[in-house]
């Protein structure tokens, strides 16, 4: 069940929302979509779901196009959250579940399980409009996963939730992945993607800027962060070869270096100058990569 996007382009009139996007999302993995506002994440999801037709390129899932015959295999949490405000949680999910090919009884058993898991079993017969926004979001999440989809698309699943609920939802997402669901999700929160995804891509203005596994991306990025805490002035380090960026902090400095090897020369340079408390090479964070990649294309 591989989801493939082959040179997918979507134009709205003269505006290109998604430009030549090629992806391969393997089965049973979590795939992260990163991108700022208007990067084309939601448009891509809508094309995957068949809500919008791609202007060019093909999208296939397991070699077939996705259409409404497969909707029982697909779960979708849209970015704009919405449920029927006047219906109870139960009525709501029975209707949405049936539309995804479920039987009423399965909906009820599944729903009770999920409500217990999210510690809100009392919501079963409450109207959605009576629930807080965060809790509505939980219900919406349940509606996306209740039918045990093989492919789950989550558009900004954690936005607007408090940290406790974010953890709760993250655990649920990880569990689903372990049960064999392929999950695609978008976020502009780097730490979520860094924590959850093996594979990711960064979109910027519809263009794919980075794509691959998290480790590879970090490795191929090449640049590292170097943290030095010392009890003597370290400003001179800024002029050493291989140092790209110098940032002063209270106890010393944080450097960005062009490659790991550069750290050795810096290490040498520090010799005999005084007491060094900390000398640490750090992997670049996804945030660094994002800013670098997306920021660069602004220039």
């Amino acid at each position, binding site marked *: 069940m591989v989801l493939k996007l082959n040179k997918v382009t979507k*134009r*709205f*009139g003269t505006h290109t929302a998604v430009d030549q996007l090629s992806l391969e999302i393997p089965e049973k993995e979590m795939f992260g979509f990163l991108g700022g506002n208007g990067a084309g994440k939601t448009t891509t999801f*809508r094309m995957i*779901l068949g*809500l*919008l*037709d*791609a*202007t060019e390129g093909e999208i296939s899932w397991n070699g077939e196009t996705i259409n*409404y015959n497969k*909707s029982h295999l*697909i779960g*979708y949490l*849209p970015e*704009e*959250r*919405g*449920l*029927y*405000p006047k*219906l109870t949680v139960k009525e709501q999910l029975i*209707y*949405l579940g*049936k*539309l*995804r090919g479920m039987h009423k009884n399965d909906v009820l058993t599944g729903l009770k399980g999920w409500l217990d898991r999210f510690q809100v079993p009392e919501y079963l017969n409450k109207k959605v409009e009576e629930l807080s926004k965060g809790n509505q979001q939980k219900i919406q999440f349940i*509606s*996306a996963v209740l039918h045990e989809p093989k492919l789950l698309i989550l558009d900004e699943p954690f936005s607007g939730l408090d940290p406790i609920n974010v953890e709760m939802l993250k655990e649920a997402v990880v569990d689903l992945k372990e049960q064999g669901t392929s999950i695609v999700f978008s976020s502009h929160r780097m730490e979520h993607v860094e924590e959850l995804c093996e594979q990711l891509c960064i979109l910027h203005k519809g263009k794919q800027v980075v794509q691959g596994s998290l480790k590879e991306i970090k490795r191929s990025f090449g640049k590292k962060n170097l943290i030095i805490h010392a009890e003597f002035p370290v400003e001179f380090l800024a002029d050493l070869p291989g140092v790209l960026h110098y940032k002063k902090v209270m106890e010393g400095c944080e450097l960005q270096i062009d490659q790991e090897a550069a750290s050795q020369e810096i290490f040498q340079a520090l010799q005999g100058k005084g007491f060094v408390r900390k000398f640490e090479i750090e992997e670049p964070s996804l945030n660094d990569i994002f800013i670098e990649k997306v920021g660069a294309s602004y220039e």
Partner: protein
Amino acid sequence: MNKFWIILSHTYMSRVKTKSFVISTVITLLLIVGMANFQSIVDMFADDQADKIAVIDETNELFDPLNQQVENTDENIQLISYEGTVEDGKNAVQDEDYSALLVLNYNDSMLPKASYFANNISEAGKQMTLTQQLQQLKISMATEQSGISEEMLAMINAPVEFQADALDKSAKTDEELNQARGIVYVMLFLLYMSVMLYGQMIATDVATEKSSRVMEILVSSASPVTHMFAKIVGIALLGLTQVILFIGVGYLLISSKKDELTGGFFEIFGIQDTSPTVYLYAILFFILGYLLYATLAAMLGSLVSRVEDVQQLIMPMVFLILIAFFIAMFGIGTPDSALVRISSFIPFFTPMVMFLRVGMLDVPVWEVSLSIGILIASIILLAIIGARVYKGGVLMYGRSSSLKDLKKAIVLSKKE
């Protein structure tokens, strides 16, 4: 197909259960029951005693003939000869011994004249009866004075003989026309009400789903086209429930009160014995008309982002049905006019205007078939466009709500 039924039954059930639906149905049923029992209700409040009117006859001749005539025409009025002065009579009326005082006299040409005194003269019915009867009396006296005989007078008063016969064998007879007129009226009002009521319901329903943003989940699990038509049919069934309920209750009431009602309203409207073809045409045009307008409503509803904007956007639809309605109303008097003939081929007017022609005239089969063909073709065309607009429209959120969005929605649903 399965999803079609799920959406349909959801649309139907969630509407049937709403308070507004239950209340409006109950109120309408009460109205029907009330209307059927109108006479009994009026009788209940009216006092059985006839209104006593004191009459001072200063001529000593007019009272008897007038009294006789009034007795024959209106049993609710009782004339009582009053011995006394006009002032006494007025006082008696003010004391409510009598409901009014009538003073009869002759004018200069020795013909009757009268003065009428009552505490208030707002109840025109009694005055009219009295005036009419007095007029009769005056006519007979005047003719007598000028020497015209009773027979002559009867001849003058007899209505002119006027027999209208259609030479065209297949044209409708006068009687048939009356009957047709009745069913055409009923059909026009029903279609008009349905489109206004249920068309609006569809547009509102779609807009509600859009504004609550549940739409995106819906259209990701079922195709927008399925969704749109399930909604249209669901609301149609809802309307059918209501109409059947009304007609059923109405029918029961009518059959239980058959004796009172025959010869009145129903004979005029010719509902008792109209030919079955007219009924078939009525059903056919009703269904097609509903489908056409419902598709339009769903399409327009999919364009707005907020329920508040529905009214504004369905205005064009309301105007169309209004125009159709007025042409049809005008056409009832002149079903053969060019305007009616031409507009019966314009799909938005066909359901009302062509039905009117079919009911009132003998329309060639090819004309009817052509208009039905055009109607069905435009329903299909509208459905195709509607589905496109719907597909794009339901994903389109913006503040504006105008027909310009139509183009935007189609662009959104296209490949580029």
